[in-house]
């Protein structure tokens, strides 16, 4: 789960990591209210869950309240990278001496948390790393001992600091680690962490990714989870325990298993078709989920045809077939459905489908091919 910049900064503040003074706007008229609280110059940042906002015009500058109001008006309600801007973070623009990069994330190979730091802050860190690997310092964090304070000191020293600044930066790094651990974050990235003209530090931008699997124990994040980055269908799917991602084709695809679903989508592409979605029914008995999944793809205006791919182990093919028939009978929406059924009670399942006039295919590859051909012929 991605946090908006303003949420990420609230988290930093909670952990005593300094951020610029700022206000959150959802209406440009609010700018006048904040005039006495926040003096210019301003930086106005569209709160959208994508990187690279600046290039897309999602970050504007203003030297007065009037300019800020106009800038706010131009940003609010518009799209940045196809995402609507509902909120703006308006901050005091601070005089920056140097931009650093500091983050804590997960090293999937070493299976540990890792700190990344660089004096090349303010730019895309992958680009920095690929051009000059030595410019990014990595430090694994031992899972048993956590981030030891002296290691944080070492990181801060490597970034070029001593004296009071060394202590300040060390404190920020230690607190960053606590923020990660206590919030089940997969990533907390401060880019840039600015050294200001006055020698103090401030996190000018922050990306936080909270582990979706930890939400059961992160109540605060659980309650703000819905509606972000997700369409109405994706939110519905989430509630029904389905894994759903909208894509831009016209073939609705459902399968039981993420790898199986991905492969089914790959096969659709292989045979020249375009999937409208990724939808994984999940493992185990999936009969109820079939109904909800079918609902989603049937009512997706973009789908012209639906392919259901079930490899049933625990899931019985005859029950799956019955569920498909029952669901189609409830809804008047008529779209062709092709089913691939294999596994437990396969023959019985195919019989049930055939009696209801639904086409079933034994092989996954044949099913994908047939689906694409059917769409191409025109449905």
């Amino acid at each position, binding site marked *: 789960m991605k946090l908006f910049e303003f949420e990420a900064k609230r988290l930093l503040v909670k952990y005593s990591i300094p951020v610029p003074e700022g206000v959150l706007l959802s209406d440009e008229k609010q700018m006048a209210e904040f005039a006495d609280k926040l003096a210019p110059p301003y930086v106005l940042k569209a709160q959208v869950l994508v990187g690279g906002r600046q290039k897309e015009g999602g970050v504007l500058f203003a030297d007065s309240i009037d300019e800020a109001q106009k800038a706010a008006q131009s940003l609010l309600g518009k799209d940045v990278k196809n995402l609507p801007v509902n909120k703006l973070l308006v901050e005091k623009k601070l005089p920056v001496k140097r931009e650093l990069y500091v983050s804590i994330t*997960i090293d*999937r*190979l070493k*299976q*540990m*948390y890792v700190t990344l730091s660089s004096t090349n802050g303010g730019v895309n860190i*992958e680009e920095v790393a690929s051009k000059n690997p030595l410019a990014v310092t990595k430090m694994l964090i*031992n*899972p*048993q001992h956590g981030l030891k304070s002296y290691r944080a000191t070492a990181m801060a020293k490597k970034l070029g600091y001593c004296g009071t600044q060394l202590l300040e930066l060390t404190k920020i790094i230690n607190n960053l680690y606590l923020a990660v*651990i206590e919030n*089940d974050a*997969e990533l907390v990235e401060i880019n840039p962490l600015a050294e200001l003209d006055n020698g103090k530090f401030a996190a000018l931008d922050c990306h936080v990714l909270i*582990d*979706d*699997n*930890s939400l*059961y*124990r992160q109540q605060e994040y659980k309650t703000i989870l819905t509606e972000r980055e997700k369409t109405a269908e994706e939110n519905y799917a989430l509630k029904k325990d389905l*894994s759903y*991602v909208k*894509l831009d084709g016209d073939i609705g695809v459902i*399968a*039981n*298993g*993420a*790898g*199986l*679903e*991905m*492969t089914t*989508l*790959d*096969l*659709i*592409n*292989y045979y020249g078709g375009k*999937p409208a979605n*990724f939808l*994984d029914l999940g*493992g*185990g008995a999936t009969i109820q989920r079939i109904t909800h999944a079918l609902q989603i793809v049937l009512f997706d205006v973009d789908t012209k045809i639906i392919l259901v791919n079930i*490899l*049933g*182990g*625990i899931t019985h093919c005859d029950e799956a077939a019955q569920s498909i028939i029952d669901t189609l009978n409830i809804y008047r929406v008529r779209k062709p459905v092709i089913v691939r059924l*294999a*596994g*437990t009670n396969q023959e019985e399942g195919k019989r049930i489908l055939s009696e209801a006039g639904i086409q079933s295919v034994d*092989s*996954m*590859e044949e099913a994908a091919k047939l689906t694409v051909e059917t769409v191409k012929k025109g449905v």
Partner: protein
Amino acid sequence: MTIMGILINRDTRAIIQGMTGKQGSYHCVLMREYGTRIVAGVTPGKGGTILNNVPVFDMVEEAVKKFTPNASIIFVPAESALEAAMEAIDNKIKTIVIITERLPIKDAITLIYTATQSQVTIIGPNTPGVITPGECKLGVMPASVFTKGKVGLISRSGTLTYEIANCLSKERIGQSTCLGVGGDPVVGFNFIESLKRFKDDEQTKAIALIGEIGGNLEELTAQYIAQTHYPKPVVAFIAGVSAPPEKRMGHAGAIIMNNQGTAKSKIEAFTNAGVKVAEKPSDIAKLLIKECGTEILSE
């Protein structure tokens, strides 16, 4: 008769942690039907009862004292999975299969580290388990698609693995051991470890490896294969060739971030390492026969 299997075999004595839950109980029956020696179940509060003809204990320690199991399969919910696994590790159980999905990454990190320090093999989390066809099944996979044979099958997926095992079995290409490493970003026993064991396993003549987008496990595996001049043929299939970036495709670990972890990168890495990569599942059998000849077919 030689004992087969790189991880489990007919002599494996397993306990089920979370046996009295719906999933645990259901799969206990299926595993026992397959021939797996389930010696005990562990569910705190249910000690002293018997379920599916298997005695249930409150603690792993009690089960260990009575039956000396050498493996455990864990069905407990995500909130308690770390604790359950730690309990098994503390009681020196050497092989632990974690079926549980949605384990928080922080817990997985703690778990894998602790296991490594104690030289305990963790399979999973979020895995369908491991099966040595004809001998032992510690998992939830449908037994019928697997047949005994000479190909080691390793995968990050669940049902896709069954699909491929099914394809292979239909072509008379049986499996020596099939193992799901799990769909999460942080997992225990991975491809490289599996390859190491398969290398020394006489029954295994070739390996089929099923990867997917996200992370760089496949790339590192390709490196390992190249660097060690891996002595047995390896054939691969990568799911997610058509997946868009920045979207998680079901598995917690299946996400292309910042251009890293694309199917293309994995296919390239394998191809450069001399691994033949199948374009679609049905090609895997064809490639195996091409690489190994008919000797790869089961007897």
